């Protein structure tokens, strides 16, 4: 436990980049990023020790404040450590692009951001938690706001700040309620908080709202697709890959330790919100053209899956079958881990593409595979994983989630709950299919085909450090996908030891499927089989009898041009048609020139997919607030005499009140 202080100290040293002299700013950048890499490696190592049971927990007490580590915290520290290392390595190369643009601030705050996330997870009392949480929120706001010359960035950053503070307020409320019940703010005492049911419901609602906001669940996700494109790429990687998981950590603490999941409705709410977020998140992701917005909405989707699994576990606990909930809660941890890997990787590759071409709009890209082969390979791994294809980490978590749902259906015993599970299966199935489409579209339009604009011409492969950062994550995803057992076992071990404290023997096997049947998923075997089959196939077809003709693609007698390729907008058109009752796309066609009915006419086409939550929920609320504020302006007339009059009226009221 004390060794974590060393890692925090290194982050602190890295933060000192803020005060290095201006002429040494590049040196400051390298030194600080190096410190961030070392510190993250340290966190990774120490947390893995903790997970493997070599360190045996620990607690540091500073008066009323304390730092505690247990299995649940260690699992998330591993996520922070691994992704922190990879993204910091990448940031070494990527951050150079900010030379002369407040690079010291970027690097210093980067260290502070990582350090604050570690501190949130280590916090052993509400005060430390909230303090670190707030530092994390403010530092990430400053990082999002880094390119503050752009108007869009500033508005996105302020939206993020307002939203995140609403979340903090909700969490603060939950802590306050629990703390007033326990008469202490130490986590160990909060666990024995004795609250009347009504207050407990309110505390749960506040905690869920606060953490859901930070994890970007619908309808509290609106900041996410704006903040991620605004932030520098390695910052969005860390925010999406790691910071969202910190919210899962906090929610888990609340559920496992403070509030408990024994109320049926809690699990139901969490699961339904998760499912809806998963489905709508990926639907919006399929519509976007901005690479980082696609990834941001995909984060909404994956956090939705994580929370759906969480809700499923909570329902199983509420049904009094806690030993079966292990599958669902394992899915939460495993998918958090996998999503952190793949989302960091894809944000890094989006950053690489931006670095090379200067645009995030996929409609202007294409054919990047030849220019940046390594980045393309790593992105392929990440995209496959996000589409949850076999041999990647993304599948494992989703598979476990579905297993958890099956268990729920099997154990529920009531038709209503089975209906819910059917609904969940439909939504998760749609989510999976749409995710596949979404990432085929992202990868295909960006890296395959022919170039869609001249921006692609200047593209080049990335420097070594950036490739190492991406490569690390890609390797981890593949390793986890091919041999999921160690990761899954570790995560399950975490659950059975610390937060759930269930005797381990009750769970049979790894891939448990309710009842007496058992199913096993072993990607290594499948991979071997697939390799053998491919080899056989290659052997049979690779004889010299095959004649290959290379011809121009048939295009009704004309040469196909680059502009006739499938566009990203075109690719998602069927979806837009199928789901237009949800998406409500607004199309605008302007005929600029129309000489002939079919030929030689110029068309300006504008497609807008408004976020329904912004239009239906946030706009009206904003409208009402502004109206209320306008009404209040009546009392502010700017006349000194009127203000004195208010004082006088107040005084008369006080005197009458006192006299009665």
């Amino acid at each position: 436990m004390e060794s974590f202080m060393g890692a925090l100290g290194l982050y602190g040293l890295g933060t000192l980049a803020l005060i290095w002299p201006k002429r040494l700013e590049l040196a400051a950048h390298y030194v600080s990023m190096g410190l961030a890499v070392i510190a993250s490696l340290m966190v990774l190592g120490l947390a893995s020790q903790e997970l493997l049971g070599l360190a045996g927990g620990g607690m540091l007490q500073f008066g009323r404040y304390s730092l505690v580590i247990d299995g649940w915290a260690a699992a998330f520290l591993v996520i922070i450590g691994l992704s922190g290392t990879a993204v910091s390595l990448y940031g070494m190369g990527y951050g150079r692009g900010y030379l002369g643009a407040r690079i010291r601030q970027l690097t210093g705050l980067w260290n502070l951001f990582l350090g604050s996330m570690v501190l949130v997870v280590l916090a052993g009392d509400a005060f430390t938690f909230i303090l670190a949480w707030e530092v994390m929120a403010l530092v990430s706001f400053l990082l999002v706001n880094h390119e503050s010359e752009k108007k869009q960035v500033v508005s996105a950053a302020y939206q993020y700040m307002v939203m995140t503070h609403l979340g903090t307020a909700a969490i603060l409320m939950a802590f306050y309620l629990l703390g007033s019940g326990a008469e202490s703010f130490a986590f160990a005492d909060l666990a024995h908080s004795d609250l009347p049911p009504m207050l407990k419901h309110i505390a749960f609602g506040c905690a869920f709202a606060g953490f859901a906001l930070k994890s970007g669940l619908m309808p509290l996700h609106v900041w996410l697709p704006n903040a991620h494109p605004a932030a520098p790429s390695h910052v969005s990687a860390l925010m999406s890959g790691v910071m969202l998981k910190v919210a899962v950590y906090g929610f888990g603490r609340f559920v496992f330790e403070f509030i408990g999941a024994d109320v049926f409705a809690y699990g139901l709410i969490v699961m339904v919100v998760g499912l809806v977020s998963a489905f709508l998140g990926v639907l919006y992701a399929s519509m976007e053209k901005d690479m980082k917005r696609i990834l941001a909405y995909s984060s909404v989707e994956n956090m939705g899956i994580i929370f759906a699994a969480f809700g499923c576990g909570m329902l199983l606990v509420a049904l009094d079958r806690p030993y079966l909930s292990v599958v669902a809660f394992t899915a939460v941890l495993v998918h958090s881990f996998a999503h952190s890997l793949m989302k960091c990787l894809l944000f890094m590759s989006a950053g690489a593409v931006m670095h090379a071409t200067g645009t995030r709009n996929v409609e202007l890209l294409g054919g990047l595979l030849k220019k940046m082969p390594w980045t393309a390979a790593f992105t392929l791994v990440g995209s496959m994983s996000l589409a949850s294809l076999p041999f990647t980490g993304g599948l494992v978590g989703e598979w476990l989630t579905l297993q958890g749902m099956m268990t729920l259906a099997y154990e529920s015993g009531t038709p209503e709950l089975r209906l819910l599970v059917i609904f969940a299966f439909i939504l998760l199935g749609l989510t999976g299919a749409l995710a596949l489409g979404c990432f085929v579209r992202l990868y295909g339009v960006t890296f395959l085909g022919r170039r869609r604009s001249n921006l692609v011409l200047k593209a080049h492969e990335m420097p070594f450090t950036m490739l190492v950062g991406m490569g690390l994550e890609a390797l981890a995803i593949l390793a986890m996908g091919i041999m999921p057992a160690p990761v899954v076992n570790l995560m399950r071990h975490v659950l059975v030891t610390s937060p759930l404290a269930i005797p381990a023997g009750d769970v049979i096997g790894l891939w448990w499927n309710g009842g007496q049947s058992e199913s096993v998923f072993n990607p290594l075997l499948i991979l071997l089989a697939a390799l053998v089959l491919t080899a056989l196939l290659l052997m049979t077809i690779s004889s010299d009898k095959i004649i290959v003709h290379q011809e121009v693609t048939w295009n009704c007698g004309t040469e196909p041009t680059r502009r006739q390729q499938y566009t990203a907008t075109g690719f998602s058109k069927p979806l837009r048609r199928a789901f237009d009752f949800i998406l409500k796309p607004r199309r605008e066609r302007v005929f600029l020139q129309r000489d002939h009915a079919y030929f030689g006419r110029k068309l300006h086409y504008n497609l807008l997919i408004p976020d329904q939550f912004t239009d239906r929920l946030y706009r009206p609320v904003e409208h009402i607030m502004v109206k209320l504020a306008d009404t209040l302006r009546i009392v502010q007339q700017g006349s000194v005499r009127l203000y004195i009059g208010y004082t006088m009226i107040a005084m008369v009221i006080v005197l009458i009140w006192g006299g009665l």
Partner: protein
Amino acid sequence: MEYLVVLLLAVVYFQTRVMELKRSVVCLMAQSAIIACACLLAGLNHGLMHALIPFALTLGVKVLFIPMAMLKLIKRITDEREIFSDINVNYSTMAAAAFLVFGYVLGSRFMLDPLARDFFAATIMMIMTGLALMVMRKRAILQMCGLITLENGIYLLGLIITEGLPLVVELGVFLDVLIAVVVLVILTNRMSLSFMTTDTTVMRKLKG
């Protein structure tokens, strides 16, 4: 003491009817002098020194310095615009009477001693009338008179409730009033220079 209360009430009533600047300052002077006397009489119970210092301070600050500064200001300001109070003087007098009744209602609840009750009612009336003067008058000087009346009321209230405030507190109160009046005098002077009037309603233009 009883005579002082009657005198005080009479002066405050008169003050609500005065619209001319110089006369209202003279009223204020008389009012402060009565307060000083009350101060002296109340203090005598606690020893001569304790009575003399507040008396001297009240006399020096409120009876001499502040009215003198205000009179000097009145000589200097030139109101080019004719200012009429938009609220009839009768209303302020009526309000003062209502406040006096209100004071007696409250006083009968808080104070047992009849003399203290009279004083209490008078102070409530002074405080409220001071506020009312500030609200109902447009001219800066008259509003200042209202402020001093309010301040006198609070001072007298403190005096009868505590039967003599500690010296440090009294010194602090006087310093406060002194500074407030100095600032107000300077501000009114500046206002008269910039706006050519001391009508405070023109200040509304400053609202953003």
